[in-house]
């Protein structure tokens, strides 16, 4: 598939890190076009300064940045309670009328009524149903992605596991 013929999705840093933890960025690029604001690249570069787990994941994600569609975004509609980068991503998704992939609950809740938002697990099932990875592999990768254990992620993990098992 050519870059421009694939469906486009705006990704925030949290979603790219989740997919990076599961080493899925290359596979995701096979099925869609990753659209980001320049500030997302800058956030990843900040993570990449450190040699810890997230730093290494950020470095891995940044290996693919040449094939990302990167935009300088003007914030025309500012939403309260979310960061500057999140406002850029909201405006980018709204202007291009494409969904925002984020694992940031606060961002998702604040923009949910204006744009389509999905957790990064959207891509897991898209990869399974497109025949790119098996259901078993998706469940294995979901285990890796749930590592950041807090009650919010715990609900995403349990629900996603139930839904993937029923695919």
């Amino acid at each position, binding site marked *: 598939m050519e870059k421009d013929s694939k469906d486009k999705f705006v990704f925030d840093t949290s979603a790219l890190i989740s997919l990076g933890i599961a080493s899925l960025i290359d596979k995701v690029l096979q099925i869609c076009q990753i659209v980001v604001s320049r500030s997302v690249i800058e956030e990843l570069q900040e993570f990449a300064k450190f040699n810890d787990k997230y730093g290494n994941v950020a470095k891995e994600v940044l290996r693919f940045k040449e094939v990302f569609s990167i935009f300088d975004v003007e914030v025309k509609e500012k939403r309260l309670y979310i960061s500057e980068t999140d406002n850029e991503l909201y405006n980018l998704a709204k202007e291009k009328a494409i969904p925002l992939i984020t694992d940031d609950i606060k961002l998702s809740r604040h923009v949910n009524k204006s744009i389509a938002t*999905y957790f990064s697990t959207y891509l897991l*099932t898209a990869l399974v*149903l497109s025949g790119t990875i098996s259901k078993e592999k998706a469940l294995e990768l979901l285990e890796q992605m749930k590592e950041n254990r807090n009650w919010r992620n715990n*609900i*995403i993990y349990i*629900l996603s596991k139930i839904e993937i098992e029923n695919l």
Partner: protein
Amino acid sequence: MDTEQFNLRISKELLRDLTIIANLLKVNKGEWVKTKLAKEIHEEKNKLLMELSNLYANSMITKEEVGKLVGNEIAEEMEFIKNKARESIRKGAGYGKRLKR
């Protein structure tokens, strides 16, 4: 940060021990207790909310019951996450099917 006063009556023995700790660490007793209490509250809250989220995600407790236990704000957030997680998986599946065709 907004604060509110919260008084504690503790045994003399516990206060003596607290004084020993404060003297050895060269810290203020109140500050040391506040730091320890904040850490303990944070960990215990996370642990209990993890258990509650397990029950809620597995449909063993309703949103209304969650609301009665921990307040409507957390109950609303849990409901949002549950619905969004389902929606993400199902819409992702639809997109994947479309790609395969």
